[in-house]
């Protein structure tokens, strides 16, 4: 009796060549082209509106800055028309939501949708291998959204230049470290990358698209606020000086306090002392004249005199701040740790895919 012979294939080498990485390029594009198009349209629309408003803004600033003599009624009018455009600063808050939205809409569904619809049972049992599949999806998508965000932040940097230019003439100058920091330099791209990586990991952990998107938004907002409120001011050792009565307005003042004889004096005590001295030394000004330039200068001088008087009588004023010259070091520090975090999150996601059982 003959046994049933199965058409035997030559025994293949167990350490066979893996499916080449480049084959995933089509897969990733085919499955995520709608998300990528949506990101492109969204960022493109933002870019067009920034560009259109920005041109007017730059013209208004240039016209006001070039106007001579600066005190003429015409120049005053030009300055007013520029400063009235300061509504454009508000969109800074809107733009800060862009990385979170990209993380939620482009990052979270990558794995959550597969897990929610069960298609991971198809995708993860193909010859490509599931951790390679995950890596080959997440890395190119992360690079694309980061590059797109980077391009938008170049436009943002240009857009806000009239406002943040050194010696901006017409709007109160604020520190570039405290203001619009994440929209400029490398920070915006880095935050977008981090949001995408948070989304990918949330999708793997939560396995449902909508909850993963919500979790991504929440985690991003938490991280962004924690960074702005507690972390960023410690990137480099803070400068602590005493009796710096007129710090540059571009400096990021972190705290200010008074001491007398080595002991801290509370702010309410200082306010009382200073107000009473100010009232005594500042001549009474008629209300109608209080708005004039001369009175403002006089007030400031009186304030400085008060401070000098106090320091001569045993008080010391301390200021802790970050100088504006640290803008780029701060950008690289923020970009650096966000990049490291993103790499870690993506690695964790790939590790979970490799390890976690269905």
């Amino acid at each position, binding site marked *: 009796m003959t046994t*049933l012979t*199965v*058409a*035997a*294939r030559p025994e*293949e080498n*167990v*350490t*066979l*060549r*893996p*499916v080449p990485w480049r*084959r*995933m390029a*089509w*897969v990733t594009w*085919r*499955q995520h082209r709608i998300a990528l198009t949506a990101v492109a349209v969204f960022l493109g629309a933002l870019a067009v509106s920034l560009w259109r408003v920005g041109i007017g803004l730059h013209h208004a600033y240039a016209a006001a800055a070039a106007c001579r003599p600066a005190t003429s009624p015409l120049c005053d009018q030009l300055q007013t028309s520029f400063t009235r455009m300061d509504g454009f600063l508000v969109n800074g808050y809107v733009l800060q939501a862009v990385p979170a939205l990209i993380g939620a809409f482009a990052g979270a569904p990558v794995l959550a949708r597969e897990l929610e*619809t*069960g*298609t*991971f*049972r*198809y*995708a*993860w*049992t*193909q*010859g*490509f*291998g*599931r951790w390679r*599949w995950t890596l080959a999806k997440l890395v190119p998508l992360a690079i694309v959204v980061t590059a797109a965000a980077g391009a938008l932040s170049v436009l943002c940097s240009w857009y806000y230049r009239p406002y943040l230019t050194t010696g901006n003439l017409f709007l109160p100058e604020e520190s570039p470290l405290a203001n619009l920091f994440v929209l400029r330099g490398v920070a915006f791209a880095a935050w977008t990358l981090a949001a995408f990586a948070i989304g990918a990991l949330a999708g793997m952990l939560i396995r449902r698209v909508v909850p993963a998107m919500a979790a991504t938004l929440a985690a991003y907002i938490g991280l962004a606020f924690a960074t702005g409120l507690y972390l960023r001011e410690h990137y480099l050792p803070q400068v602590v000086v005493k009796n710096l009565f007129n710090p540059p307005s571009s400096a990021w003042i972190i705290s200010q306090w008074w001491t007398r004889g080595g002991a801290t004096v509370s702010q309410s005590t200082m306010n009382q002392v200073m107000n009473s001295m100010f009232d005594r030394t500042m001549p009474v000004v008629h209300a109608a004249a209080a708005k004039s330039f001369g009175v403002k200068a006089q007030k400031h001088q009186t304030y400085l005199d008060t401070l000098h008087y106090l320091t001569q009588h045993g008080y010391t004023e301390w200021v802790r701040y970050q100088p504006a010259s640290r803008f780029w070091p701060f950008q690289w520090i923020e970009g650096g740790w966000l990049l490291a975090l993103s790499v870690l999150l993506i690695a964790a996601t790939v590790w979970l895919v490799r*390890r976690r*059982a*269905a």
Partner: protein
Amino acid sequence: MNVIEASGLGKRYGSTWALRECALAIPAGHVAALVGPNGAGKTTLLNLAVGLATPSAGEVTVLGGRPPGSPAALDGIAFVAQDTPMYKNLSAADMLHLTRNLNRRFDQRYAEDRLAELGIPLKRKAGKLSGGQQAQLALTLALARRPRLLLLDEPVAMLDPIARHDFMATVLTAMADDGVSVLLSSHVLAELERVADYLILVSRGRVQVAGEVEDLLASHRMLTGPAAEVGRYARRPVVRLSRGEAQAHLLVRATADDPVPPGWETHPVGLEELALAYLRDPAAAALPGPARIRSAEPSELTR
């Protein structure tokens, strides 16, 4: 070569064991049926074999010792999961393209020919195909990979009788033409009788019966005799006893050559009958190797 080999294999979800102490060695060249009630551990066993789940205890290898989920294992195994998950917004042609890109081998021509034969339009979105067409598309994708082992989880559960018949015909053709080994899980017993030549019964997370259908049928007999004399027949392991007013039916582990007590008749059993008998009595077991055989004596006989 054994396409699946397991020893002491167990999988626990939380505090419940979906599968435990599973010992199996399924040789190549079979259409093996994995049968059991819902929740018996069929899907768990398939997930373990394909690497979608990791064992909580013991071990499992595929295709002659390869770890499940390893590149070498995935290369030789095609898996069609329950409810045939597919990207609903991709067309059939895109699904072919996708599968071709994700595997070392893909027989595009075979796949296109088969879809044409089945009347599945390449441009139609997978989500717009009927249940039967989706199942056929998933099977075509799997077979076009030219696997050595095809794993099918409840492939026909959702299909109407005609689609069911067509689906199984495709599986059998692939088996005959390519020598692909098949392991399919099902709780539809009638369908399996026609196609399976190897049977694995699982219930309550344990493997109850495993063996070639031919051997299993040859080693079981149905005895019919007077109900009053049931107690006299305790010499052979009894799988199941059903007693009527006058007559009793005993499914016993015995061959056709075994002597029959006077007054008793003996008949061969069918696969469905055999499977049902075991499934009704989860304590009974018929496993390869003497150590695995527990003599199962329904309590009624020992009284």
